[in-house]
């Protein structure tokens, strides 16, 4: 997601044009006044006007549950319909695809897999890529989770391959046709915002459990970035180049295959890279419905052996980072714009490819003859690693430490002075006041269209009977967003100003974005033993890296001559930062806020698993209690909330520049 964002910011024109209004008409004052009126109403009529039952579509949950029953019935009928059989066939196909990859990896033996991975990375990505690959395989082996890692890898091969097969052609289409792009965007938004927990149930009923169902769940989340980045790449090709090609008499097809696609090459490879990372973040969810592998170790370990769950989580992180670095290196090294292939070099590269293939084949043959197994069954560092992780957990669990004094104090204060009053305010203010108030704030800060969207979305939330839960969730999301933006902004600016800090921050960001949230929730619960806070902090930890990256990029990309000009006028470093760099990076910063909110919302369900009340809790409960209606309605409310917040934050900058969309 962050990558999509980067490219759009550079396209936008940074501007210092901020119109000046008298203070009493400024956005902040007006919003403050609206909040003031809402506060008066809140204290006057606390909790007296919840969303009325007469405005709620009461029978909706029943209809949804009937739908589930119907699904179960038709799925398990004596003679299922063609559609059901088609779903079954597709699931079977995916099952066997994953199993085929799995047995291929097993057949290659662990030595063969390692050699193949390292040498192929070496040939196409260079020495550093090969080192990353070797480190990853060593981690799989030493953690004693080789088999699980291979299962996850097989799942990824199938899911990423199919996602790209679907995503790249659709992305090309979206890049060529504005109408298609506009039609597909809301669908992609929905695919990314609706929590996977919500569609697990229908997927299981339609596709049963197993690797096939896991692949489908992963694809739903991993296809959107493939489409979005590919489309961006196609759009980024300079129009005059394409025109020139057409003028020279090339057909539209030729202009696509010979001009657009090659020129969008870097973005296409980036979409592969992002699709892999998005797919990997679904590993734990996939483990829930029979996806096996590392995700399974995480979920089942949480109850009986948290240290093991943490170890598996760390292995997932290493896998993600290795795949990220290797694909990135391949994209850079094979970039035709960067290297000039002479005939001699080309021949040498071809020879290197043949040599790689031969060595891999020889090693696999040798390993099979020597009787090497599919699993690495030699000495591992597993027990040692588990003991270390356990000692960290023990430390965290100990309520007598200084660390605990600090963290529990922070947690208690966030609850007492942040979450609880804010939640009460949103939930207990009379509903018409909240509805009108929030819509007016959207109008003031963002403009007419976002305000209309906000009004409609809040209406939907009310009608489906999710008003109170959604307000509860909104309070958590807003508190988490404030923390996310504060931390992300601070770290991003620091990283933009100091290369060293940037280098330190990158791996931290990588780990936080790829470590499954379920894994660090348990230590968080120990450190901040109040409900809601661990969920909020998990959201912050997941979202601030993206904000930091966007801010860092935005501040760093401010044109050098502007900065030099300011310096020439005698501005100090701090002045340059405050008066030049940050204002010029505002687009990137607002985009960071926008992405931060969406990502916090994505983690809301995970918060629900550790007791944050509201929509996430209902989604989780819907799955656990087989209550389909509850889960679906809560997911619709999450989507509505997401759309409203997205449109409003995106509109803010436009409104500042005085463009009414």
């Amino acid at each position, binding site marked *: 997601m962050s990558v999509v964002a980067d490219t759009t910011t550079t396209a936008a024109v940074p501007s210092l044009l901020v119109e000046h209004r008298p203070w009493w008409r400024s956005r902040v004052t007006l919003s403050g006044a609206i909040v003031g009126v809402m506060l008066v109403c809140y204290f006057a009529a606390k909790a007296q006007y919840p969303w009325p039952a007469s405005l709620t579509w009461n029978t909706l949950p029943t209809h949804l549950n009937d739908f589930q029953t119907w699904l179960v019935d038709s799925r398990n009928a004596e003679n299922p319909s063609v559609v059901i059989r088609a779903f079954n066939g597709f699931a079977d196909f995916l099952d066997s695809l994953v199993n085929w990859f799995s047995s291929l990896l097993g057949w290659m033996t662990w030595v063969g897999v390692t050699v193949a991975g390292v040498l192929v990375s070496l040939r196409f990505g260079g*020495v550093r890529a*090969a080192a990353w690959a070797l480190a990853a395989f060593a981690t799989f082996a030493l953690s004693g989770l080789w088999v699980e890692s291979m299962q996850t890898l097989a799942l990824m091969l199938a899911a990423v391959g199919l996602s790209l097969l679907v995503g790249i052609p659709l992305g090309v289409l979206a890049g060529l046709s504005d109408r298609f792009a506009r039609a597909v965007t809301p669908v992609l938004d929905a695919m990314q915002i609706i929590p996977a927990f919500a569609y697990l149930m229908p997927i299981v009923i339609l596709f049963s459990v197993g690797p096939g169902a896991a692949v489908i769940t992963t694809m739903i989340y991993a296809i959107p970035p493939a489409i979005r980045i590919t489309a961006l790449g196609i759009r980024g090709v300079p129009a005059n180049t394409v025109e020139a090609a057409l003028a020279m008499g090339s057909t539209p097809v030729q202009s696509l295959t010979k001009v657009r696609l090659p020129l969008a090459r870097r973005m296409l490879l980036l979409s592969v890279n992002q699709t892999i990372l998005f797919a990997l973040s679904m590993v734990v969810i996939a483990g829930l419905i029979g996806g096996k592998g590392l995700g399974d170790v995480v979920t089942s370990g949480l*109850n009986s*052996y948290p240290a093991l769950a943490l170890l598996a989580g760390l292995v997932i992180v290493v896998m993600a980072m290795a795949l990220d670095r290797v694909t990135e290196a391949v994209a850079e090294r094979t970039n035709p714009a960067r290297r000039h292939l002479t005939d001699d070099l080309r021949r040498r590269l071809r020879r290197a490819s043949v040599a790689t293939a031969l060595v891999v084949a020889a090693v696999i043959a040798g390993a099979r003859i020597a009787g*090497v197994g599919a699993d690495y*069954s030699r000495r591992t560092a597993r027990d040692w690693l588990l003991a270390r992780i356990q000692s960290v957990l023990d430390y965290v669990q100990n309520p007598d430490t200084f660390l605990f004094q600090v963290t529990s104090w922070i947690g208690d204060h966030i609850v007492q002075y942040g979450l609880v009053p804010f939640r009460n305010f949103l939930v207990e203010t009379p509903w018409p006041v909240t509805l009108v108030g929030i819509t007016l704030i959207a109008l003031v800060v963002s403009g007419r269209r976002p305000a209309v969207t906000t009004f409609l979305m809040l209406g939907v939330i009310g009608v489906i009977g999710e008003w109170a839960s959604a307000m509860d969730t909104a309070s958590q999301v807003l508190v988490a967003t404030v923390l996310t933006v504060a931390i992300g902004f601070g770290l991003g600016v620091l990283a933009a100003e100091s290369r060293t800090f940037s280098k330190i921050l990158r791996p931290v960001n990588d780990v936080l974005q790829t470590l499954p949230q379920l894994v660090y929730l348990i230590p968080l619960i120990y450190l901040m033993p109040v409900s809601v806070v661990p969920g909020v902090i998990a959201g912050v930890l997941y979202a601030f890296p993206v904000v930091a990256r966007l801010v860092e990029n935005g501040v760093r990309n401010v044109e050098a001559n502007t900065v030099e000009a300011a310096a020439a006028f005698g501005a100090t470093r701090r002045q340059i930062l405050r008066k030049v760099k940050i204002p010029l990076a505002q687009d990137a910063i607002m985009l960071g806020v926008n992405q931060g909110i969406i990502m916090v919302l994505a983690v809301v369900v995970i918060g629900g698993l550790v007791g944050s009340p509201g929509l996430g809790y209902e989604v*989780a409960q819907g799955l656990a209690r*087989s209550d389909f209606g509850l889960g679906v309605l809560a997911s619709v409310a999450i989507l509505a909330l997401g759309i409203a917040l997205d449109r409003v934050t995106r509109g803010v900058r436009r409104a500042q520049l005085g463009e009414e969309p």
Partner: protein
Amino acid sequence: MSNRRARPVRLVLAALALVVVGALGVSASAFGRDAAKSCGSVTMDENAWAGATANVYVLKYVLEENLGCTVNIEKLPESTPLFQAMADGKVDVVPEDWNNILLKVNQKYVKSGTIMNLGSNGVIGHIGWFIPTYLMKQYPQFKTWRGLKGKEGIFKSPESGSQGMFLGGDPSYVQKDAQLIKELGLDFKFVSVGAEPAQVARWTQAYKQKKPIIFYWYTPQYLNTAYQLSEIKLPARSKTCVDSYNPKLGSNWGIYKCAYGLTIIDKLMTSKFAKSGSPAVGVIKRWKWSANDQNYVANLIAGKHMDPEKAAEQWVDANPAKVKAWLGK
């Protein structure tokens, strides 16, 4: 130029990697166990809690060692996903079901004849309100719920405001505590912290600090051997008593004003597997053990982090008579 120089380096590195990996590989040993004789394979579901792991691994050990079965393990979420997997033949046996089979959606699978309820697995579950024993010693009046009246304030927490905090159970479990609190007129705020690991984290931490805490809990549970807990007596049960809050039953919450009943925990099997003629069917039908047995194995696995296979072996070796009865000898 640079390419020419880079090549030997890369070759050397590749060779090095090869040597390292090769050396490890040659010394690696691979012994596949050849199971699968007459019995064929059985797929069992392992639920997320330690007691369920104990069931599965003891059964696995017995079936593999005595009948030569191949036992596969799936780990699926309870309820509908699991039942659909059984209907599709992906899971044959569920050794422990906490009454999910009784839910209306899931009864469909029983009625259509795909899933059979084999009855109790011997373990009887019980849900209740628990406090640490040190607290019970300090306040003996907490033996029954009446003693809590007026004393709710000692259970205060940051999120409960002026009230005391009642720590609710995993939201997916059977419960009615918010309703009970209201009906009993207690000044508690019902707070759920979500899934079981989170709830355990919360109350064990309070326990370690010797702080007052009152929470939803159940037996059998292996943690009950590591922590001293005492139960608070709730109003006696009546015939019309309901244990699981259901909004469809209306707003008269009087029906919840009673202690939780005993939960008979059932084992389930698919009809297809029951008819397969596998010798494992008889063993699973006869299989039954007590809460103490289960806790013993669960504590080895989750409390002492022993390998589940080893824990099962240890219990089986210590209880030959029980295993013999399951085998029908």
